[in-house]
């Protein structure tokens, strides 16, 4: 298995731990990733809200680069994943968008013919690798660690390519295969606040609090995320939302950190040492070695 790896900006910034742990997981499962040479911004957030067409052209360039290499793209960041997917759909559905993007690409000597599949790591792990193969490689079972899976909005909506839109379960199944116990709560696709924390801080903090308190209420010892922004919101603003409502402290990690841990990666190689809410004590309590 070999894919073109598209890290995007977050995985080289706040989401560094996501990259570190994901690469460790893929290495452990013999999936080859080759970073897309000369990739550019995926076109998410600012571009998408200000000038959609430019955003499609930016995403189109990344797709074209992958198509030239005849590789499918792995896009771990939920925002990248959505924009790349959306661009493909829009190019199919709206001829004039296709025309604009094609023209823009032609200007830099690229073409795109919709042959690239944009894949999410969850999709690859579940459908290409399979639960059995993963379970077989688990070195450190998660011993019933109670995890609240949190999917956020972008990886299953509006395009549900590999999981149910309203009740996704791919992360649940992966982490269960590693021995974790999933906490069922009803907010696993509800809004994390997105960038509200910056614009309407009270609303952002409320939304963050709802998620934390529901996960906590059902006994979660950690929250697993798939998106750098979700992870950031849920981890960084625990104190602020706690001040506004009531304090809750719960480690918020990437699903890939838990997977990497189970597959034997040391905690300090997969970014756990940088967590704002450390998971160490929880792991110690479960007697899960993490060095």
């Amino acid at each position, binding site marked *: 298995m070999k894919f073109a790896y598209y890290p995007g900006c977050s995985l080289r910034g706040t989401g560094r731990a996501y990259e570190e742990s994901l690469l460790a997981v893929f290495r452990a499962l013999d999936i080859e990733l080759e970073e897309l040479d000369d990739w550019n911004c995926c076109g998410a957030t600012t571009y998408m809200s200000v000038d959609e067409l430019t955003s499609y052209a930016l995403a189109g360039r990344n797709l074209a680069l992958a198509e030239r290499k005849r590789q499918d793209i792995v896009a771990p960041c939920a925002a990248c994943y959505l924009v790349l997917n959306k661009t493909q759909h829009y190019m199919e559905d*709206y*001829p*004039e968008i296709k025309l604009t993007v094609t023209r823009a690409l032609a200007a830099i000597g690229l073409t795109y013919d919709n042959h690239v599949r944009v894949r999410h790591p969850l999709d690859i792990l579940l459908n290409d690798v399979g639960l059995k193969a993963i379970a077989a490689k688990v070195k450190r079972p998660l011993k019933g660690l109670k995890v609240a899976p949190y999917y956020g909005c972008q990886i299953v909506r509006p395009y549900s390519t590999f999981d149910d839109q309203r009740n996704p379960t791919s992360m649940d199944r992966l982490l269960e295969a590693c021995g974790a116990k999933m906490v069922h709560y009803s907010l696993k696709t509800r809004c994390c606040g997105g960038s509200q924390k910056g614009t309407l801080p009270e609303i952002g903090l409320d939304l963050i609090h709802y998620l934390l308190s529901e996960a906590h209420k059902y006994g979660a010892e950690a929250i697993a995320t798939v998106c750098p922004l979700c992870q950031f919101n849920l981890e960084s603003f625990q104190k602020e939302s706690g001040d506004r409502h009531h304090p809750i402290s719960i480690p918020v990690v990437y699903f890939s950190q838990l997977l990497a841990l189970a597959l034997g990666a040391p905690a300090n190689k997969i970014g756990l040492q940088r967590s704002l809410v450390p998971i160490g004590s929880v792991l110690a309590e479960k007697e899960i070695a993490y060095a």
Partner: protein
Amino acid sequence: MAEKPKVAFYWCASCGGCEEAVVDLAEAILDVVAAVDIVFWPVALDFKRHDVAAMPDGSIFATFLNGAIRTSEQEEMAHLLRRKSKALVALGSCSHLGGIPGLANLFDREDIFKAVYLESPSTVNSEKVFPVTRYPHDGQSVDLPGFHTSVRALDQVVSVDYYIPGCPPTPKIFHAAVQTLLSGELPPKGTVLAPDHALCDECLRKDTKPEKLSITEFKRPQQILIDEQKCLLAQGLLCMGPATRAGCEAPCVAGNMPCTGCCGPTSRVHDQGAKFLSSVASLIGAKDEAEIDRILDAIPDPVGTLYRYSLPSSLLQRKRLKETSPQAPAVSSEVLHAGH
């Protein structure tokens, strides 16, 4: 003694086998020769075109013309002989259907010239000389036969009274046809002088064909050891017998080779190839496209197989000419606005 009926033989685009077939009548030819007066037969007797031109119109009882029509000379001779003859008989597959030369209709004229005068390994033509219809020489001009775009069967050039099928017609077919013509009880114009049912009827292997044939693999004669008793189609060979007019008594099958369809279709069929295609494809033992395609891959040249003798007289007559392909197509507004 009453005057013997005058007959003529002529040879257009063909291999000459049909005239050979006339000779193959063996001693029976003596009866024929005794009964008729041959007035024109370039291959055997020294008559010239102007001899024919000098004859009164309609003075020849029957002209047996073999070969398809490719050149202007052949066309001219076909018109001339038509005018001079009471009955014009198309003799053999080429004249009847277009024949083997008719397969040239799979190519454009320019490609044929290029292949023959430039690209064939045995050709040296550094000056790139191509055939022409008029050649000026020493202040004079020589007219030469022109090469038509396509090969045509005789009846696509002039009206034909009767057809004697086969490549070549077997002596039996030819003899019976001549007897019919000489008998004075002439069949309706346009009749093919052979039975109007398919060859299986007279095939010796008919009884060995299973009632429920299902073909999962097509084979070519060189690929297998052919059972000498069993129906060839049942062995996966593309035997055209079911789609081919009878009369020849299946000598090819007797020689352990499949029928290739030289006698053409029955009177009820417009397109021999299409009919055989329909019949044989129906018998393919598969229901999904990929499997059907896999089975069909064993037929590398469908047109050459289905229309070996009948391409010019088939419904499409020839491969679509390159020149007729469209210039830049007009873009309709609907295409660009699709999806809204």
